[in-house]
C-alpha cells in the first residue's frame, strides 16, 4: 500500500457494525429478513389507549426485553429511550467485533440523534411539579428528562469514554449525528464512533401528533402510511433505534473486518420555513443533494439507489419527489427509490434505522420494497412489492425535516481491496 492509499484509507469512513431495535425486529438479522420481505409494522397501538384520538395505529416495538441487553445495575436508572439506545449500541459494538477495554475505551464514542427525547418522562416530571409542587419532584427522574441521557447512560453501560454528543434537530437529528461522526473520525477525535438515532412513542407524543393533524388518516379513509402515493393521507407514528459503528477503512483493514459499506460523503442545508411547517419548494433539497454529491466527488449519474425521507405526508413527499425528478432528469435509468417509513412509520430520528438498512442493502446488493405505495405520485423508479436486486456503488440516504432542514448521506459499496 502506498502513502496515498494509506491517507485515503485513514479518511475513508466505513460502517462495520449495525445495531437495531425496531418495530420490525431486534437485531440486523430479523430486521433484514422482514424489511426485504416487505413486512409492514403498522398496526393498532397496544402500549397505551389511543381510542380517544383521531388516529389509532402506530409502528411499535413489541418484543424488547431490556434485560437481554443491559446490566441489572444500570437498568433501573434507565427509561425506555435510554434502554433502546444502550441495547442497539451494544448490538452494534458486538457486530463490529469490538470489546471495550482500558486500552481502547477513550477512543470509542457516541454521537446520537434524537428528535424529541424522553417525551414520556418529561410529561411525568411536569405533572408532579404542577400538581404536587417542587418539593415532591423525584430527583431520579431529572437526568432522564435531558436529551443527552440516552448517550450518557449508554456510555456508562458499555464503558467507553471518548467523544459523546447528542444532536437534536427534528427529523434530521440522526443524519446530522452520523455526518458529524464521520467528520470526527476524520479529524482524529476517535477511532470508533457509535452513531445513529432514537425516538420513542409515548401517549403524550402520539396525542400531540394527532392534535397537529400530522397523522393518517387526514381524511375519512383507511389509516396507513403511504409514502409517495397519490392518495397518501398523513404519516403513521413510529419508534425505533438504529446505531451504526463507524471507523476508518485503515482501522477496519487492520482489524480484518469486512465493512458493510463506505460513507462517501454528506451534504447539509436548509431553506426558510415556518416552525413545524414545510418550505414552499424543493430548492433547498436539491441544493443539499448537490452539496452531498460534490462532497463525495460524484455526479447525479452515479446514484443508483435512494432511501427516501417520504412518510406519507402531503407536502414532504411532494417536495422530495419533485427534487428527485429534477436532480436525476439526466440520469437515464434513474435511481431506485425506496421509502421505508411505509413499513416502519415515522420515528423522526429514523435516519439511524434507515442508515442501518441502507448499509444492509449495500452489503446484500438489494433494495427493500416500499410498503403502502399503490399509485405513485410521480414517474420515478420506486421499489414496490418486492425487493430489487441492484449492485449499489452509490446510494443516497435522505434526511428532510419540517422547519426546512436537510441532510443527505452518500453510502456505497467498498472499493475492491
Amino acid at each position: 500500500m502506498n502513502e496515498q492509499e494509506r491517507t485515503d484509507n485513514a479518511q475513508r469512513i466505513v460502517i462495520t457494525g449495525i445495531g437495531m431495535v425496531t418495530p420490525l425486529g431486534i437485531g440486523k438479522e430479523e430486521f433484514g429478513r422482514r424489511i426485504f420481505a416487505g413486512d409492514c409494522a403498522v398496526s393498532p397501538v397496544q402500549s397505551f389507549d389511543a381510542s380517544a384520538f383521531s388516529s389509532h395505529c402506530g409502528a411499535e416495538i413489541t418484543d424488547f426485553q431490556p434485560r437481554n441487553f443491559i446490566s441489572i445495575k444500570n437498568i433501573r436508572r434507565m427509561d425506555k429511550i435510554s434502554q433502546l439506545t444502550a441495547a442497539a449500541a451494544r448490538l452494534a459494538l458486538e457486530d463490529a467485533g469490538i470489546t471495550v477495554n482500558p486500552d481502547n475505551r477513550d477512543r470509542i464514542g457516541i454521537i446520537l440523534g434524537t428528535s424529541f427525547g424522553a417525551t414520556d418522562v418529561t410529561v411525568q416530571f411536569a405533572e408532579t411539579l404542577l400538581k404536587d409542587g417542587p418539593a415532591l419532584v423525584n430527583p431520579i427522574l431529572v437526568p432522564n428528562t435531558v436529551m443527552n441521557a440516552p448517550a450518557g447512560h449508554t456510555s456508562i453501560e458499555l464503558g467507553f469514554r471518548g467523544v459523546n454528543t447528542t444532536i437534536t434537530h427534528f427529523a434530521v437529528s440522526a443524519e446530522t449525528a452520523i455526518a458529524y461522526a464521520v467528520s470526527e473520525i476524520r479529524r482524529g477525535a476517535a477511532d470508533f464512533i457509535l452513531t445513529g438515532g432514537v425516538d420513542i412513542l409515548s401517549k403524550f407524543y402520539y396525542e400531540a401528533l394527532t392534535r397537529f393533524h400530522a397523522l393518517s388518516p387526514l381524511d375519512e379513509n383507511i389509516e396507513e402510511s403511504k409514502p409517495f402515493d397519490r392518495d397518501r393521507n398523513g404519516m403513521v407514528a413510529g419508534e425505533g433505534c438504529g446505531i451504526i459503528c463507524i471507523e476508518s477503512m485503515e482501522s477496519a483493514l487492520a482489524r480484518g473486518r469486512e465493512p458493510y459499506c463506505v460513507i462517501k460523503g454528506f451534504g447539509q442545508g436548509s431553506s426558510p420555513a415556518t416552525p413545524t411547517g414545510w418550505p414552499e419548494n424543493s430548492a433547498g433539497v436539491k441544493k443539499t443533494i448537490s452539496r452531498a454529491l460534490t462532497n463525495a466527488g460524484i455526479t447525479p449519474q452515479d446514484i443508483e439507489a435512494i432511501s427516501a425521507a417520504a412518510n406519507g405526508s402531503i407536502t414532504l413527499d411532494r417536495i422530495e419527489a419533485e427534487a428527485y425528478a429534477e436532480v436525476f432528469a439526466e440520469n437515464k435509468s434513474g435511481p431506485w427509490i425506496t421509502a421505508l417509513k411505509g413499513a416502519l412509520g415515522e420515528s423522526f430520528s429514523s435516519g439511524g434505522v434507515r442508515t442501518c438498512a441502507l448499509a444492509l442493502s449495500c452489503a446484500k446488493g438489494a433494495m427493500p420494497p416500499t410498503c403502502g405505495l399503490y399509485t405513485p405520485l410521480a414517474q420515478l423508479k420506486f421499489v414496490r412489492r418486492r425487493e430489487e436486486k441492484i449492485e449499489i456503488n452509490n446510494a443516497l440516504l435522505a434526511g428532510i425535516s419540517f422547519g426546512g432542514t436537510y441532510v443527505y448521506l452518500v453510502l456505497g459499496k467498498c472499493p475492491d481491496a
Partner: protein
Amino acid sequence: MQTKRRIVITGLGTINAVAHNIPDFVSALSAGVCGIGPLDLFETDGFRCQNGGQIKNFSPRNFISHHFSLKRMSRADMLSFAATLEALTDAGLYPLPQQLAEDAGVVIGGGSGGLREAESFYRDLLNKNGRHARFSKLSTVYCASSADRIASNLDLSGPKATFMTACSAGGTALGYARDLIQNGQAKMVIAGGVEPMCRITYAAFNALKSLDPGVCHPFDQNRAGLSLGEAAAIMILEPLEKALARGAKIHGEILGYGVTCDSFHMTAPDENASGAIRSMQAALRDSGLTSEDVDYINAHGTATPVNDAMETRAIKEVFGKRAYSIPVSSTKAMTAHTLGAAGALEGIVSVLALEHGFIPPTINFREPDPACDLDYVTEGARKADLRVVLSNSFAFGGNNTTVIFGKCDKNGIRNE
C-alpha cells in the same frame, strides 16, 4: 495530513444577566458585576432558592425590528435572535449579503428551549383534562426551534444543527461550527447557545439539591451549589482568508476543541477528573498546542462542592506545576450558570479577555479551600496580555467539552 483552514471570530452578540450587549458585557466583566438576584419571571414558592441570573427588562422590540414577526417565538428564540442580530451587525454582515446567506449555517447549543412557554401548556393539559390545551404551543418547545427561527428569518440555506448535551452544548456548538466551515459545508456559521430561565428546569436543579440558596461562590471553601441563569451568546465564524478579504474586524480564533465523556454517573462528575483531563488534553492536541501555551483558563466553575475540586484537580493534572501560575476564573458568579448557553457565553468571555487584554475575576469569593488552591483571580479583574485562553464546560451525562481560543491581529497573525 492537510493543513486545516483557520477559522476566526468576526462578530459577537450576547444578552445575559449582567449585560444586554457586548460593550456592556466587557464593562461588567471588568467591574465584576454580579447579575444574580431575586427572580421575578416565575413564582419561586417552595423552592430551596429564590435567586437566579435573570435577564432583566428584556423587551424584544428593543433588539428585533418590526420587520420580523415575534409570533410564536419563545423567550429562547427571541434571545438568540437578538444576539444573532448584534453579532451580525458587529461582523459588518447585516443585512446579510444574499450570496453569503446561500452558504451560511446556524449551530446552536440548546437547553430548555421553549419549555418556559410549554409550562402553561402542561398546566392546561392537566387541569382541564387536556380538552383546552393548545398543542400549537408545543411548536416551539424543542430547542431546535431557535436555530430554525434564525435561519428562516435571515433566509439562510446552509446547514443547521442543534446540540443538546446540557451544560456543554454551547461549547460543542462552537467546535462543530468550526468543523462545518473546515469541511466545506458552510462559508459562514452563526454559532452559539441559548438558555431561557424556566421554572421546570429550575425545579429539576432544585430537586437535585444543586442550587446555592443564596448566590453562588465558586472555588470558595463554603461553596454550596450553583446559581441558575439565562443567556444568549452568539459568534460569527468565518475562514480567516474571507475575513481578511473583506477587511473584517477579527476578535479571535477558534484554535481547537475536545469532547469526552466521564462514563461514570449521570449527574455527578467523576472525582478522579478523568473526563475533564482528557477533554482539555484533546482540545490542546486539536489546537496543536501544549500545556505551556495556555495563558488563562475560563473554568466551568459551577460552585458545586464536587465540580470545583474536580476541575482544580484536572487542571493540575494537565498543567503540572504550571497550574499554579495560570490564572483560572469562573465567571458564573457574575452571569450565573446558563446551562446550554454556558459554553458559548464563556467562549465570548474568553474572546473578550484576549481582545481587551484582561482576566475577568471570580467574584463572591470569601474563604480559600485547601482542595482549590490555584490562582482564581479573586481580587478583581486583572490586566493581562493573553494569547491563548482555554474554556471548560462539563455537563450532566458526563459530557465534557473544552474549547481553546487564540488571539490574532487584524492581519490574522497569531500573536506568539
